[in-house]
Every structure is written in structure tokens, then in C-alpha cells.
């Protein structure tokens, strides 16, 4: 049973558009939701994260929108650039209980067309 689910395996948008990547989860005890970015041949790297006490987290062109009641969240990438082409993983954990154990979604491969 997939505890963290990303709705698309792949997504293509044009340069300059806003890319929206969706994620949902099942365990209502999850309270920390990082997004990791992975380029081909590299390990994932933390991009942006949100805690369940917030409904929005912004960092430059990247914004997480979080809906606790619906148990879903989305990553918005404004003004998409070709360099944003990568695989994005949504993850979740119970930070104060699981000692940092993360549950990852399947990943969404984002392609930005110039």
C-alpha cells in the first residue's frame, strides 16, 4: 500500500509556465513533507519542505501548498526553466516519532520544453 502517492509519473510543461506536481498521503500522523529534486546520475537533494502546521511554504520560484484536511499537497514551480527538468519526489514523515524516517512517493519526472 503506497502511503505517499504522486499523481503523475511524468509531466511536461513549456518554459515560463507554472509546473504543478501533486502528492497525497494516507497517514494523518505525518507532519513533515519535504520535496527532493534529483538530476540524472545524482542522488536526490532537498528542495523545499513544509510542516503540517503551515498551509504554504515559499522559496523563490518554488511553493508548496498543503491541505491537511484533504491530505494532499502540491509543489508549484513558477516560471519553469529547462534547468528545472528533473525527477521530483514528495516524501513524508512523523518527525518527532520516526527519527527522520522518510516515506517517498514514486516520483514525477518533469520535463521543461524550451
Amino acid at each position: 500500500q503506497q502511503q505517499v502517492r504522486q499523481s503523475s509519473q511524468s509531466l511536461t510543461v513549456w518554459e515560463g509556465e507554472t509546473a504543478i506536481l501533486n502528492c497525497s498521503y494516507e497517514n494523518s500522523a505525518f507532519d513533515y513533507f519535504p520535496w527532493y529534486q534529483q538530476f540524472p546520475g545524482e542522488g536526490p537533494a532537498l528542495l523545499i519542505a513544509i510542516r503540517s502546521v503551515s498551509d504554504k511554504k515559499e522559496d523563490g520560484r518554488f511553493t508548496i501548498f498543503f491541505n491537511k484536511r484533504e491530505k494532499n499537497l502540491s509543489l508549484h514551480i513558477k516560471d519553469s526553466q529547462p534547468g528545472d527538468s528533473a525527477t521530483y519526489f514528495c516524501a513524508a514523515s512523523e518527525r518527532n516519532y520516526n527519527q527522520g524516517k522518510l516515506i517517498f512517493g514514486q516520483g514525477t519526472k518533469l520535463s521543461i520544453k524550451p
Partner: protein
Amino acid sequence: EAAVTQSPRNKVAVTGGKVTLSCNQTNNHNNMYWYRQDTGHGLRLIHYSYGAGSTEKGDIPDGYKASRPSQENFSLILELATPSQTSVYFCASGDALDEQYFGPGTRLTVL
């Protein structure tokens, strides 16, 4: 300089053989993790450790062992490798309430 390194970067093994994947971190993090990455499954946790001498089972531990002889080093051991263990393996380090830092990965092929 890279804080989490893995060796080897690529490995071809035979079915039934023993494989050891190594990970070294210079972050001085207490926690270390081993994941495998497969298309359609994302990253799945195999084993993790809270410090030297400790290992814990993750979500998919069957067929794998782990060893944490020191703060810096964490190994993943496949005693009897099978083709189903063909995958890309990532090591990560982190503090309990902070981000995880991943290594560059090891591509393992079991023939």
C-alpha cells in the same frame, strides 16, 4: 567536497554471490540510511542506523544486512545476490529532525 560518498559506483555481480556496498559520510550525522530506487517505486528504505553499532530494519529488509562499524561508515550486504536486487542503491545521512543528504548512488546489476 562531497559529504556522502559511495563505493563502488557500478557493480556487476553473479547470482548467489556476496555483494558489499559501502558508504562514508563526513557530516558527523548520527543517522544513516540505505535506499533502493526502482522506476515506479521511488525510494524505498532497506536499513537504517542511529549510530555506530546500531542497525534497524526499514520497509524492505529481506535479503539485505547492514553494518555500522563507525559514525562515518555504513555498509549494505547482500549475502546471496539475486537478479531481483538489480537496482540503484542510495546511501544518505541526516540528523533526526533535519534533511537527509544523499550520496551519488551505486548501480548494481545481478546476472
